[in-house]
């Protein structure tokens, strides 16, 4: 794979399982085994009840767009060829919101409330990004 020029995630002991999940093409977040809360970003214990009984759970990969922007300025040289590119906030069906890029859609066709589903983008041998596209299937994956 050619050298990937864009920023890569800062992987820490706390968020490594999230990135390992994406590499396996699974969107996983932590779920509290005591109170059922699912959250993002990764935390050492449940932000709701502070339980340490936490497990990584595979999610549906479905959500809806809650906000989006279009970058016309390339702050990173590696994004120069991409402008104007979108960044969207997606609320997962399970609750937490992620920032992402929407693919397979024109920027001017994006709307708040648009149903989307995850697309796994293997940008390097070690890193997979969670991008989203307009939802195609009612009951996927």
């Amino acid at each position, binding site marked *: 794979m050619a050298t990937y020029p864009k920023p890569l995630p800062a992987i820490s002991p706390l968020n490594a399982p999230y990135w390992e999940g994406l590499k396996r093409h699974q969107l996983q977040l932590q779920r509290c085994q005591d109170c059922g809360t699912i959250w993002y*970003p990764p935390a050492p214990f449940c932000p709701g009840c502070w339980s340490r009984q936490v497990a990584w759970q595979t999610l549906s990969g479905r959500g809806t767009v809650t*906000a*989006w*922007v*279009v970058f016309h300025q390339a*702050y990173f040289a590696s994004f120069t060829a991409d402008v104007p590119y979108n960044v969207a*906030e997606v609320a997962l069906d399970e609750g937490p919101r992620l920032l992402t890029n929407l693919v397979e859609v024109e920027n001017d066709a994006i709307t*708040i409330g648009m149903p989307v589903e995850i697309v796994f983008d293997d940008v390097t041998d070690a890193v997979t990004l969670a*991008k989203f596209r307009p939802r195609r299937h009612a009951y996927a994956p």
Partner: protein
Amino acid sequence: MAAWDLKDKAAVCGVGHSPYGRRLNRSPIDLAGEALRHALDDAGLSRDALDGLIVSFGTPIGVDADTLASTLGLKLTMYNQTWAHGRFTASCIQWAALAVTAGLAKAVACLAALSFSGVRRPMMGGAGDHEGAREAGGGHGEDPVYGMTSPGAGAALVAQKYFQRFGATSRQLAAVPVAFRHHASLNPGAILRTPITVEDHQHSRLVCAPLHLLDYCLINDGAACVIVTTSERARDLQQRPVYLSGMQGLPGGRDEFIWAYPGFGMAQQAEFDYHAGLQPVYQRAGVTPADIDALFTYDAFSILVWMALERFGFCRPGEAAAFTQEGRIALGGALPMNTNGGLLSEGHIMGWNHHVEIVRQLRGACGERQVGHAQIIQWANAYGDSLIYRR
């Protein structure tokens, strides 16, 4: 919690600042020294009368409290410093008020010095922006792997959501920078003084849509300083004291996102209908929003002005777009805001320049841009902290 009993117990006795400019080619220590010197002279205090220092921001764009103290030969009994983030301006002044009323210090200089032009790599977005590398995410929603970078992009997300939720438009948002540029045109110290129109705003380039260039504040150099002492002592000094009547600190937690009030549903905020209620700052100052003669806010991006108005109950959620039209927030309007020109046009001294302006307004020293009969002025932010000053 102890009952609030600090109403009017501390006061600002002196203010000062350096010139503001885009490329001053001066070090942060140099700029800070000039602002501090002017503030001490304004107060009529000697250097040795100063025993406290609270610095906002710090390296690499700003000055650090320890090196400033040693470089300027200060003799301090306490100093403190915030992390490199703009939200702590009022907090610094609040802590200074607590310090002088508690007897920890007699006079505390609060300041920020910034040299954005002096850093090698731009910090507001891109590879030099450390926010995106923070564990658990950037303070404004930065997520560099998706190209999500710069404080303004987080504000653009808020603006997009606001526009769609309430049917507001970029054209309506233009009223904010147009009003503040008018104020700057009356301020000889402002960096951008040429008046602008709604059309200028609409034709300025998109930086991170839906925000245009004229929705963004300046990136510049300069320093500003506010000296806080007890009200009792301030009354013996050469300037009319400007009292700190009420305050509320920075709210934190999962319901908070720096550019949106609770319930707005940004980042991990729960989504619900927000009601401002009567914010504690008013009760502590013994006033209501109707008593506020002028309002100042952290206007790094124009949308933050709408968020601040709604957060503090000057209007209800969704109403700020209409509220800010027809000159209501301009000088001569019902609620003049950021009469110095704001971060948008006077300069980005992280709001420290706004506090200098508030004090001068309450002294009646603002000349052409004086708010008539200004008695009570509030600093209140989209992110929830506030100070109420009175003359």
